[in-house]
């Protein structure tokens, strides 16, 4: 067989595609069929895309904010996953309370997914309710006024557009809220 693929381009093509497809199919199509948690939403998870399509004003605002987050490439520098690493649960936590780790059922309606790969800035998977909205408004205008040493760019064209700013903040405040993990509901507005 080895000699055949060496000399016949047709045999070669068949073998190369076959080899690729074994792993290709087993790692793309099989996993969601085997692990139902990928598509089963968490109990508290809101379907913002569907709510926005139905005309829910808050959901529309959040989806608009999410679109800004995608377009401005926020996800290149901020991950949205509290990993199964102890330090992650502490850093995502608040006032001594550790946050739960991120699970697939919290992200069922996310498209595009925004898990990210790089943390130039901190992880945002549980940032919703951590700071009040005025803090975010100031932070988008001038990050270093609140966090000296930060390397986040200022976003004047968002900060100066109340509609965009409100939408982006609404989205940020929605992050990680599917799991109600804080005691006494002490989320910032």
């Amino acid at each position, binding site marked *: 067989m*080895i000699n055949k693929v*060496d*000399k016949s*381009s047709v045999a*070669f093509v068949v*073998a*190369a595609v076959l*080899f*690729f*497809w*074994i*792993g*290709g199919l*087993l*790692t*793309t199509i099989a*996993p*969601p069929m*085997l*692990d139902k*948690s*990928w598509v089963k939403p968490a109990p508290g998870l809101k379907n913002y895309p569907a709510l926005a399509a139905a005309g829910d004003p808050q959901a529309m605002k959040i989806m608009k904010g999410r679109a800004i987050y995608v*377009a*401005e*490439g926020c996800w*290149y*520098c901020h991950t949205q*996953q509290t*990993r*199964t*690493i102890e*330090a*992650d649960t502490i*850093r995502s936590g608040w006032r001594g309370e550790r946050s739960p*780790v*991120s699970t*697939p059922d*919290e*992200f*069922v*309606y996310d*498209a*595009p*997914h*925004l*898990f990210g*790969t*790089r*943390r*130039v*800035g*901190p992880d945002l998977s549980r940032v919703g309710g951590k700071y009040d909205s005025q803090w975010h408004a100031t932070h988008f205008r001038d990050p270093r006024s609140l966090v*000296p*040493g930060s*390397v*986040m*760019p*200022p*976003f004047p*064209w968002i900060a100066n557009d109340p509609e965009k700013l409100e939408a982006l903040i609404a989205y940020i405040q929605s992050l990680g809220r599917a799991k109600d993990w804080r005691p006494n509901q002490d989320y910032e507005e």
Partner: protein
Amino acid sequence: MTTGAIAGNAGSGPNQAAVHEDRSAFAFLSMAALFFVVSGLVALIIATKLQVPTLLGGVSWLTFGRLRPIHTNGMLFGWLLAADMGLCFYLVPRLCGVKLWSEKLGMATMWLWVVIILSAVVTLAMGQNQGLEYAELPFWLDLLVVVAWVMFGTNLFATVATRKYQQMYVSIWYILASVLWTAFVYIVGNFATLFTSGVNQANLNWFYVHNAVGLIFTPLGLGIGYYFIPKAAEAPLYSHRLSMIGFWSLAFVYVWTGAHHMLHGPISQWLQTVAILFSVMLMVPVWSLVWNFLATMKGQWHQLKDNIPIKFLMAGTIFYLLTCFQGPMHSLRSVNAIVSKTDWIVGHAHMAVLGAFSFFAIGGAYYSIPRMLKTRLHSDSLANASFWLWLVGGLSFFVSLWVGGFLQGLQWNNPSIPFIDTVKFMQPFWSVRLVGGTLMFVGILLFFWNVLATFNHRHERPQAA
């Protein structure tokens, strides 16, 4: 098992039987060199932004988040893939002993590619971003990429179908396989992702991101290395059998590993474990290939002194070995818990693309461009200078990010250190990276200048014997 088609028989009869026009090969390479300059400039801007975050701060389309995808897509598709395509148009016809099937189709592919890259720059600057890494481009551009790839593949397959030598040299396997695999990988990454969400989409996205490197740039780069190393060294390939082991193990193993980008993340543990196992197995194709490349140089190492293409190809081989040793190591859970999401990974990715595969492409370009134009290289000393700029610049770039990233990872795992302190900690490492990147950029300028001058003076300097 050697035949006349094997590249080591340098200058032997059959390879010179056909008169090669090389129009589309050169057009692709020179266009790639131009995009290399542009993407390099963008790279310098965003590297500076990490140190001076207010730089160009008021202009939306010049922010980090808009320029970063222009940089990554520009380097991957504008520079490296275009350069690889040009080199394929050069070497496949030579290995087949025939002319490229259609120069017209090749030129049309090149112009379509220019349209795609320019449109990509404009749409990304406007903030049209699909939000998926390496798949940022809008749907209509994805379609054009598919059209261009089919045109490229048709040309290569038709050339191979009309070949004079029955046995296909290993470079042809890598290149043909890459054309096929890329088609599937690209469709999964750019179209299948549109119909999914959440973890399911992320899994497809990482399948694509990983295999964009593993099954597009790796096989193209290795096919190029397999051709140019024996050619430039004028030495026969060490082992055909070893190249078979390397190729078929790569074909089987690489595709399984995408989920290692989500280790410790919200994705099934068993899938993470599968990805780790196959990531470690990657050492089989990598080490068999590196062994083959290095053994081909046996008795030829003195050429490292003056043979510029060989300098690039061998440095590329070492970068490839290092990159592909890091990869399996990162996939181990204990190591991943430290380096994942840090600049270590950025250093790793740059060594793969700018170290290993760009070095293969540049080595191939310095060797082939004078032959395409039937002239001599404009300046060997400029080419040599570009090598040292890239090597020194690249190493300071990669090493500073590894050291800084590793230490930052350790700091992240100590939650008593505020996050912002770990950012400030990176500044000196980012400075070294910026200096290294600047050296590389000067190397890019020298390369571009050399290609341009070689073209302009091609009639005054006829080819050496």
